[in-house]
């Protein structure tokens, strides 16, 4: 039962990550490979604040939202100057810089050894100790984030973003400030990724830079693409499938030495397959990768 609870918690964390990336990819049409960096910043800021300053959950949450929002806004600025291919490399550069900083700034982050002994979350007087309590907490967060995303999808804000995604010049001629809209959605997406980082750090109680690599970003991108970029339920379905599918390999009985490699191959194959033959994902309608996507 503990195993199932653990899998559900991991699915919950990836639903939050995929939902947040979907806001960026699905609504602005940009691909960011820096999502894992924002996830990592959330985890490290939370771990350090809790261990060094014993700060409360809500203070940590506020700090992570502010830091990630600011970094997200800074990162989106070059997208107004360069093409989408180049923006992907800008996010790649940000991802590498964050990863190397976490890995090399040993005095602060513990370097490759990471940070261990991260205490459980305390919400007012509720100390979350058991896996079931974590599952409940993550369930609440998934619900709130899905609600926020739902509100964004139904709002006029989303319609403007879709207009920007389809035709930036047209959106400009309609008098829409595309800079503000893109900055807002990137800040929201990055902040939500940071929240996933907080939940992950306190659940696992140990973090190291290896959990926040560019491959992790590609995995989150795969979830969004396979589920369906721009759709409401697509990232949820993608997260469930991509977290559960490798678990099947465990039961088939592949040696653990090659299981990780097989899992990566599976993600790679699915990514290429969906980009080629089903760019709208499993339940999406927006054909993300076509030149004249509808």
């Amino acid at each position: 039962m503990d195993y199932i609870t653990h899998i559900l918690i991991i699915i919950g964390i990836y639903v939050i990550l995929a939902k947040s990336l979907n806001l960026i990819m699905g609504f602005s049409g940009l691909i960011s490979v820096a999502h894992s960096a924002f996830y990592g910043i959330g985890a490290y800021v939370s771990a350090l604040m809790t261990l060094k300053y014993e700060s409360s959950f809500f203070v940590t949450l506020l700090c992570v939202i502010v830091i990630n929002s600011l970094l997200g806004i800074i990162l989106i600025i070059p997208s107004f100057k360069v093409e989408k291919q180049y923006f992907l490399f800008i996010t790649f550069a940000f991802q590498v810089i964050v990863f190397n900083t976490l890995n090399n700034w040993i005095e602060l982050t513990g370097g490759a050894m990471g940070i261990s002994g991260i205490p459980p979350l305390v919400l007012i007087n509720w100390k979350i100790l058991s896996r079931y309590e974590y599952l409940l907490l993550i369930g609440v967060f998934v619900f709130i984030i899905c609600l926020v995303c739902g509100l964004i999808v139904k709002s006029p804000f989303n319609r403007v973003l879709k207009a920007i995604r389809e035709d930036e010049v047209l959106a400009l001629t309609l008098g829409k400030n595309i800079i503000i809209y893109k900055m807002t959605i990137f800040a929201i997406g990055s902040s939500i990724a940071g929240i996933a980082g907080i939940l992950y750090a306190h659940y696992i109680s140990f973090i190291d830079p290896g959990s926040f690599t560019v491959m992790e970003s590609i995995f989150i991108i795969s979830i969004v693409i396979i589920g369906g970029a721009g759709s409401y339920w697509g990232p949820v379905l993608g997260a469930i499938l991509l977290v559960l599918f490798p678990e099947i390999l465990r039961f088939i009985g592949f040696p653990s030495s090659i299981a990780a490699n097989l899992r990566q191959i599976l993600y790679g194959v699915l990514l290429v397959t969906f980009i080629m033959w089903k760019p709208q994902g499993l339940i999406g309608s927006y054909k993300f990768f076509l030149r004249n996507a509808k």
Partner: protein
Amino acid sequence: MSQIFVNTLISASFFIVIGLALSLIYRAVKFFDMSLAGIFVAGPYCMLFFYNSLCIPLFFALIFSCLLSSIIYYVIYFAIYKRFEHNAHSPLSLLLASFGIYIILQNVISIIFGDRIMTIRNIHIQEGILLGGAMLTPIQLIAILYSIIFVFIVLIIMHKTKYGLCLRTIGENFPLAQSLGVSVKKTIVITYLTVGIFVSLLGIIYAYDVDIVPTMGMNIIMMGIIVMIIGGNGIMKIIIAGIILSLAINLGAWYIGSEWKEVIAFAILLFYLLMQPRASHKAVN
């Protein structure tokens, strides 16, 4: 200081070859092909198989390794990228698909050969050459000479051959090249096969210098992409960008530590793209 200069030359030689190879591919297919990182790694592992496992003589093992890697690269184009042409996919989709292909290649190599660091050196370790107070190993000298030869070959191909003219035309204006009867398919196939051979050979030289691990390709390809973005499409500009990047990395490593090399390289890329009014147009035009 002379050692920094020599180290700059060594790393610049790798960056320039990769930057030029990526530039050739970009001219042909208009996207940054990340799967080239897999070919860079496939070369040394083929060498490990032919030379160390099958004990084939060095010269033939080199030829077989480069040919096999090149064929793998062509198969990737034929089986995957070529199909994208019919579906009006954006370059972004090809770029992301190439990431996926790189992940597949890297992990297939990991399953076959293992994740640990391996060596293809079963020759006697030779003493380094002293060059103005700096040490240089024979294989590093070969890397520098190889990059010089590669640059000359690219210059000759691009400016003196019909294929080079076709590739330049495709790079400048793809639809116009097609309508003027330029053999687009043939040019792309030649580009993939040629780049596959040269990059896998570079991978083998790199492996003789620093040993091999399945994940070694991504870092060097990213350096090549930085060189290509900063240098644009001009061959001489790519060479200058390669030298500047290499110098910045080596000077940075000297002053703040070698563990920050990647951060320096990517900070340069970020700074460059932030400072450009429309940086993207450089590589396209």
